[in-house]
């Protein structure tokens, strides 16, 4: 239902506009003066002071891939993250795990897994959608590079950033 906001009746002084402008200028000048006098409490000075130790648990930094404690790639290339990724930053090329590999039972793994960090918006949808708990947003936020190619994280880089995440996913337990 539409809700109609009644516009307030303006006095002549308000309609003339100029007094209000002067008032506004006064307010901003007050802030300016305080700043100049050093009375304003300013924010953290970034490169010297960092907040890294206080980053909350839910902080959403760079997305990474993790391995389990047996050094198995948790990612099975289901491409759900590629599907959900709003800026389409993720590109996956799946492959079959060769039968002589000790994780052959898992059958599928990513051959290429690329996240374009120029496109990534750190939304965390990939982490949320991952059925294998293979992709995590870690606390790295200063992702930079000198070329575009450098900003595309490939599989090796993603595993390097992600590291190991312990805890067996039930279904790959050969006993179960």
């Amino acid at each position: 239902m539409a809700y109609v906001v009644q516009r307030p009746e303006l006095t002549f002084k308000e309609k003339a506009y100029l007094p209000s402008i002067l008032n506004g200028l006064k307010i901003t000048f007050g802030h300016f003066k305080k700043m100049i006098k050093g009375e304003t409490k300013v924010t953290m000075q970034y490169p010297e002071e960092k907040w890294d130790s206080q980053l909350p648990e839910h902080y959403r930094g760079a997305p990474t891939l993790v391995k389990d404690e047996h050094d198995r790639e948790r990612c099975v290339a289901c491409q759900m993250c590629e599907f959900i990724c709003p800026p389409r930053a993720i590109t996956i090329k799946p492959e079959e795990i060769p039968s002589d590999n000790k994780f052959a039972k898992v059958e599928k793994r990513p051959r290429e897994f690329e996240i374009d960090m120029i496109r990534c918006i750190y939304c965390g949808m990939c982490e949320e959608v991952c059925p294998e708990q293979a992709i995590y947003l870690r606390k790295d936020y200063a992702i930079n590079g000198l070329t575009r190619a450098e900003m595309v994280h490939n599989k090796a880089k993603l595993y390097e950033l992600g590291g190991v995440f312990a805890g067996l996913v039930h279904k790959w337990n050969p006993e179960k």
Partner: protein
Amino acid sequence: MSTETAAPVQMVNVQIDGVWLQFPKGTRVIEACRQAQKLIPHYCYHPKLSSPGNCRMCLVEMGMPKMTPDRNPVVGADGKPEIAWIPRAQISCAQDVSEGMGVRTNSPMVQECRKGVMEFLLINHPLDCPICDQAGECKLQEFSVEHGTAESRFLERKVKKPKSVELGPRVTLDAERCILCTRCIRFMKEVANDDVLGIVDRGTFNSISTHPDRILDHNYSLNTVDICPVGALTSSDFRFKMRVWFLKESATIDTNCGTGSNITVGSRENVIYRITPRDNEAVNGCWMPDSHRLNFKYVGSPERLKEPVIRPQLGEEGPTWQQAINLAVEAIKRNAGRVAIVASGRSTNEELFLVKRLATALGAKVDILPRSGVADGMLIAADRNPNTSGAKLLGVATGQFGEIVAGVKDGSITALIALGEDATKAGLSEEDLAKLDAVVATDILPNKTTAKADVLLPVSAPFEKRGSMINLKGRLQRLNRVVTAPGSARDDWEVLRDLILGITGSNGLHSVEEVFKAMAAETPALAGLTLSRIGDLGVDISLP
């Protein structure tokens, strides 16, 4: 009952979810419900196969008319017979409708049954949807969401079965995912007439297997993958290539033989990943042969011709299209009256129509290159040209091929236009081609003729162009664009239009729709049709 009206098919009254409807006698209950817009979940039932009734998913509540002791139906207050409901659910796929029958498709009992069946089916299921190729088009997923419970109550160990078993060269089995609906077994037995699959082991260890010493290598084996409701049978070719939800599905037709099977092509970002048959009772039902299904790799081949080529080459840079066309036109004009056109039975009607115009303008001999194989008695026709009927209708298939060959050999023909065909496959040798003054060739892949061509124009593959074709039974069907052509390759009809424009100087056509319109105006069999009126399923036309 008034059966005196001598109806060809007896109609029976059936009550579905409280609504009385009429169905022909012999209709299965599941089909009747489908026609009444009540979809009943099912796994083992397939309209083209027999009904074993072993998945138990299609349970519905049924009832028969309540009878008075003198075997007359009890009529209720509304004048309709009262129904005595059977106290346990029945499967709807193995039961035909009968007079006065009542069906409840969504009663609490039915819902409870479905929930139970779903839970049973999922007991030993590995739940590996993340790696399963069926995910996204899997009936287990769909019905589990619709009718199942969200959590598993199963605490025991799941039964382990073989995974990734190669049943044949093209089909891979994952026995853990199998729900033993036996669709594949029945398909191989009833449709393919190659009873190679069966169930081995007992009880909970039941699994699908091939007959000892046999493998599943029938040319229709991939249809089992299509009809498998879960991810148990997967195509080895498509396995782990692409998730199905990424695929853009385009409806077009198969161009490997004169049958013209209707197909759905799945592609993503201009790459074709798989081809599946598309239902069309008038052409291919819902099946198609493996050999045709897997014949799409050439479309993305790195060898594809991408830019026009002229010989001798002018310089470092290749010629522009305009230069190449101009050169071709000049070469053809130079040999006016001594030109022959090798057309293709793989061309669309629109292209053949323009070929005919070109031939008329030049007074050239024209014929399509014949291409035949062995018919398999099912969906592969002996004529491997998909549009021979169209070529005949439009007057391009003239049977003059022998004359063309003879003309080339005796020197009365000095220029050859090869449209998407390798002329060396039909009697001409490479020396014959070398002897000619000019060879203009259009094609998608290099071959012996394109190697000899003075002007080589790259064109679109069947998946890259629009148009229409007529199959051997005289059905006009539409070819749609699935992917775009590589490089600067153009549609065949555009190339032909430009050649005609260059030779006759008359005004050109601007879209493939216009070409069809012009063709329909000149061809009585196509009168009144437009490209869009053909529709996805095609129309039958009367061939002269």
